[in-house]
């Protein structure tokens, strides 16, 4: 039962050991022994149960920022009581991936080979090459895997495919790469079926829940910029020939804060969640359509229509496209968008966004000038 111990391995794999006089509260704080996975057997045993703090950390990770400190030390780990014939599962050293894997191995006896992916999940790391052939080959030799098991097969998460060339691993180490299922939850079924994954197990899903848990990652960056936007908008509408006018800020500034909030909600939440039900394949267009609808509704409820024409036009030029821009960012979180498609979208959408932003500024200036009686 070393879960407690594992929870404190927040140090990067290359962190200096404590006995070199390095003071770190993280991995070797006062009175705490450094986690040494290479001690004697070189094998750490982990439980397959997740603790409350594992779950809490999972939530924190979803919110971003915290993810970089969420690293498992590379090496070989034992789940249950594995022997020389037990299966070897390869994992990224991103703790969420590792946790999901060890939970899926509940009541099984198996080895987990954690390779150094710089704390990044399998899919991202494979795309960058960190979950790669060389790292895996090196780790197989370093852990002396061939002394630990008698067989010569390792099971990799299928999503590691973009980074690892199975045939090269076999050529260099003798270990045959078996591609496990996409989801660790299917591992038991995969093993029981004689290392065969069904078509469903081979495909990435992207259901409502998958989309929902990703929306915080979309909302957080937008909300970070929001205060700056709010300040600028309030200031612009407060500006009067006589100085600063609070009524101007209130009459025009506040409604436009609400409109921006609606556009962010539309682009970062509504569009991702309703993705399959919004017409068109393009994310930019999906986001624009949802944004248009939100803008119509929000504009009505806060009385944009009684404003001067320049501001009404600006509302419908700017906010649906803001939603579109934010929705386009969600391509990074999905499992079915490729670079060629994204590039194609950006080629037509970026000039449009820039033009619309420019036009909106011109419209606001026109409004201000007519307000001041210049125009």
């Amino acid at each position, binding site marked *: 039962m070393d879960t407690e111990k594992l929870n404190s391995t927040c140090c990067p794999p290359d962190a200096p050991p404590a006995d070199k006089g390095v003071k770190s509260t993280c991995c070797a704080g006062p009175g705490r022994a450094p986690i040494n996975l290479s001690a004697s057997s070189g094998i750490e045993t982990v439980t397959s149960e997740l603790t409350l703090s594992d779950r809490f950390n999972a939530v924190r990770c979803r919110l*971003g*920022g915290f*993810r*970089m400190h969420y690293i498992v030390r590379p090496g070989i780990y034992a789940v249950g009581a594995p022997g020389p014939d037990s299966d070897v599962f390869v994992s990224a050293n991103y703790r969420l991936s590792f946790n999901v894997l060890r939970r899926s191995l509940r009541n099984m006896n198996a080895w987990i080979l954690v390779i150094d992916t*710089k704390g*990044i*999940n399998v*899919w*991202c790391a*494979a*795309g*960058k090459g960190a979950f790669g052939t060389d790292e895996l080959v090196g780790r197989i030799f370093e852990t002396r895997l061939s002394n630990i098991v008698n067989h010569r097969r390792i099971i990799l998460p*299928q*999503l590691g*495919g*973009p*980074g*690892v*060339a*199975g*045939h090269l691993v076999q050529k260099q180490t003798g270990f045959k790469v078996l*591609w496990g299922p*996409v989801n660790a939850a299917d591992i038991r079924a995969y093993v029981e079926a004689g290392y065969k*994954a069904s*078509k469903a197990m*081979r*495909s*990435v899903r*992207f259901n409502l829940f998958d989309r929902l848990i990703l929306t915080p*990652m979309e909302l*957080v*960056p937008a909300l970070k910029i929001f205060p700056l936007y709010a300040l600028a908008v309030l200031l612009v509408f407060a500006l009067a020939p006589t100085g600063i006018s609070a009524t101007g800020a209130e009459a025009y500034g506040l409604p436009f804060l609400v409109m921006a909030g609606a556009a962010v909600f539309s682009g970062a939440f509504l569009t991702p969640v309703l*993705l*399959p039900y919004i017409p068109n*394949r*393009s*994310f930019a267009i999906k986001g624009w359509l949802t944004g248009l609808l939100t803008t119509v509704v929000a504009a009505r409820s806060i009385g944009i229509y009684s404003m001067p024409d320049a501001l009404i036009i600006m509302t419908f030029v700017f906010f649906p496209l803001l939603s579109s821009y934010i929705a*386009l*960012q969600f*391509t*990074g*979180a*999905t*499992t*079915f*968008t*490729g*670079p*060629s*498609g*994204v*590039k*194609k*979208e*950006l080629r037509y959408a*970026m000039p449009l966004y820039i033009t619309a932003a420019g036009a909106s500024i011109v419209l606001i200036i026109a409004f201000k000038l007519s307000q001041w009686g210049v125009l």
Partner: protein
Amino acid sequence: MIYLKDVTTLRLDTTACTGCGRCAEVCARAVFEMRERKSVIIKPDACIECGACAKNCAYGAITVTSGVGCAAAFINGMLTGNAPECGCGPKGSSGCC
């Protein structure tokens, strides 16, 4: 779900294919199907250009220009002049993946 049509850079050279089936196994988007001991691209529009198939074809029968399907990566790339990279690297805190 399926993204844009007719954009993938995926190409399969049937003459070089030995029918080993690795591509169909490793592709998470069910793009290939094995027919009469050859691999066939049955759903090109489902391809996300991840590169897994090309990487795992020992016979070099597959080519694809792989990369990340992430708008933020390309926008960052345009702004900084660097290669598109998603924010899940050591520098980025809130990644795109």
